């Protein structure tokens, strides 16, 4: 399958033995210990489950999204998944250029028949860890450190604050943004004043910057909550929980649709109900009653009794349910 494709060959490659399913990472690339890795894992699971071949192109820069997507489409990949909200415009463009190729879009919405847009209800998970943080906090103050202030990080923030408020109406939540997803040292210095101002649990949603937040927790002997995948291994004593976002499940599902021939464009939402959003308990740091409480909230969310706010506006309107 390594023949050089003709530019016109937008259609799937000649007699490929295995279907090729591919992804394009955002600029963090593989190894981000986050959704790029998780998506890649999803394709790995699909290799086993469906016998497909997986392929990845990493992007050095925004301008490379389109050529990366196009190249994969031209090489005959049946499904090309774009990862990260910044790749959305590129997926839209590629999907139009290669109407016979299926695309997946993680964390963004592209309205085209050959694109499955995959959304995660991070606000639900953030809600749960917010509640856990508030319950565990002894000081009545908890913190949140975001990377850049973007709609996605804001969604985490909104859910987190709502969850905390639900668990403890008097909770104080300190909010900081580091302005970068790549600077661990900065993350630490954003976390430190929060700890010093009384926070004893911080939720980090900051990529590599977040590693510094975890580091600060380790040095201070306080709690931190990880993001995207279970980050307890980074500091087993300090990572109280992690908000888990199972991009792999979503990607696996998308591959399944292509293999089964049931692919349909449109928006796919993954939340607690779909088993794609959760909180981690490894490390056994969360008291049993708090876990129980969180599970109770989880049930309410699944049942639709609680709607975790996803934006600042929704947060404004949110009032903690009485239980």
């Amino acid at each position, binding site marked *: 399958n390594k023949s050089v494709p003709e530019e016109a060959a937008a259609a799937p490659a000649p007699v490929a033995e295995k279907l090729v399913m591919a992804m394009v990472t955002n600029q963090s690339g593989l190894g981000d210990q986050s959704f790029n890795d998780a998506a890649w894992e999803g394709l790995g699971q699909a290799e086993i489950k469906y016998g497909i071949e997986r392929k990845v192109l990493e992007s050095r820069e925004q*301008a490379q999204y*389109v*050529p990366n997507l196009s190249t994969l489409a031209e090489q005959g990949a049946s499904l090309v998944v774009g990862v990260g909200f910044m790749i959305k415009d590129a997926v839209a463009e590629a999907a139009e250029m290669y109407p016979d190729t299926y695309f997946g879009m993680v964390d963004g919405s592209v309205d085209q028949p050959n694109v499955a847009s995959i959304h995660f209800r991070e606000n639900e998970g953030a809600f749960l860890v917010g509640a856990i943080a508030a319950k565990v906090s002894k000081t009545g103050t908890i913190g949140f450190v975001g990377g850049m202030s973007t709609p996605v990080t804001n969604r985490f923030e909104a859910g987190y604050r709502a969850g905390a408020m639900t668990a403890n109406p008097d909770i104080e939540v300190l909010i900081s943004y580091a302005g970068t997803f790549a600077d661990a040292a900065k993350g630490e210095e954003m976390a430190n004043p929060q700890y010093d101002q009384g926070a004893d649990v911080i939720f980090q949603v900051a990529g590599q910057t977040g590693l510094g937040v975890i580091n600060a927790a380790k040095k201070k002997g306080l709690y931190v909550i990880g993001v995207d995948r279970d980050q307890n291994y980074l500091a087993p004593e300090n990572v109280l929980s992690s908000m888990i976002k199972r991009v792999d499940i979503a990607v696996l599902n998308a591959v399944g649709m292509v293999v089964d021939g049931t692919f349909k464009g449109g928006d796919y939402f993954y939340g607690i109900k779909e088993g794609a959003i959760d909180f981690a308990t490894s490390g056994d740091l969360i008291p049993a009653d708090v876990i129980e409480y969180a599970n109770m909230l989880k049930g309410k969310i699944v049942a639709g009794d609680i709607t975790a706010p996803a934006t600042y506006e929704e947060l404004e309107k949110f009032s903690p349910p009485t239980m």
Partner: protein
Amino acid sequence: MKKNFLYSTFIDNDSVFAFIKAILGVFFAFFVVYFILLATGYKPLPVFAALFKGAFGSRRGFGETLLSTTPLLLGGLGFAVAYRCGLFNIGLEGQITMGGIAAAFFGFIIPEINPVIHVFICIIAGIVAGGIWGFIPGYLKAKFGVHEVISVIMLNHIAFKIAAYLVSMQGPMKDKLDDMPASPFISDSAKIIRIMDRTRLHWGIFLAVGVAVLIWLLLFRMRLGYKIRAVGKNPFAAEASGISIKKHIVLTLAISGALGGLAGAVEILGVHYRLFAAFSPGYGFDAIAVALLGMVNPLGIIASAFLFGILRSGSVFMQAMYGVNKDMVSVITAIIVLFMGMSVPIGIMLKNRIKRNSNGTVD
């Protein structure tokens, strides 16, 4: 006289020599990369073939090559103009950012109008914004003696933060209907139209080459450029002959910044169609290498920007075919820069063993 013009203009011995050396530099660089690839388990020759196939082998690849050449060329010209005036503008990234912001703003705030007028307005906005971002360090230097290197480093960061703020949730340029941290899309009439079917290549490349010729004319044919170069090579002598140092420092940095702003505007209007933070992946920094490898001569810069464009677009294919990832591309780029950087002075040394000034230095 005609022959004389050509000779001194395009093919003087220096340039021919530099060109040969540059080619040799690339050649040696590939030689070294050959072994690196071999050592890391790739088959070097097919990988090289893929690089060039990717950059030239298809219409889309070639389009991408020229597409990435565009901002590098404009940025490189910006760096070169300042460098010729003895100024070290490592602030192009910030100037590009400001140019992009301004272009995007006028791109979406103005509804569909005559496309020529709209694009023109946006480009001028970009040029002005970048120009202001270049004017500031120039003014600070002329007025307060603030070294331009410090002020542009600070202004870079400030520009990045401004862009990030504008498209953040609270930001005034945020597209409220989209969950991307980006501005609304620019109106169709503000988009620079594409020129090759099924590629993203747009008119910007012609604009950039045109600007390169213009900057060449400016530097080597125009009165202003002559003065800029005079201030750059010996400000004291220039001043003694009635050329104002301060005025030309401010003006040159403003022009340099304006070229950065133009690069940013073209990127937004031709490629991204909307503003988001860090839309420039370091073009302003690569521009430094581009300009210097191009001997800070606009014609040389066309060539070196093209080389960088080849690396950028060819690398996609290299990765797709052989899994040579983005990091290997960085290393390859570094080695090419290193070898080209070496080959030129080696060549000069060979040709002109000693040519020293009174204090033993050669500029």
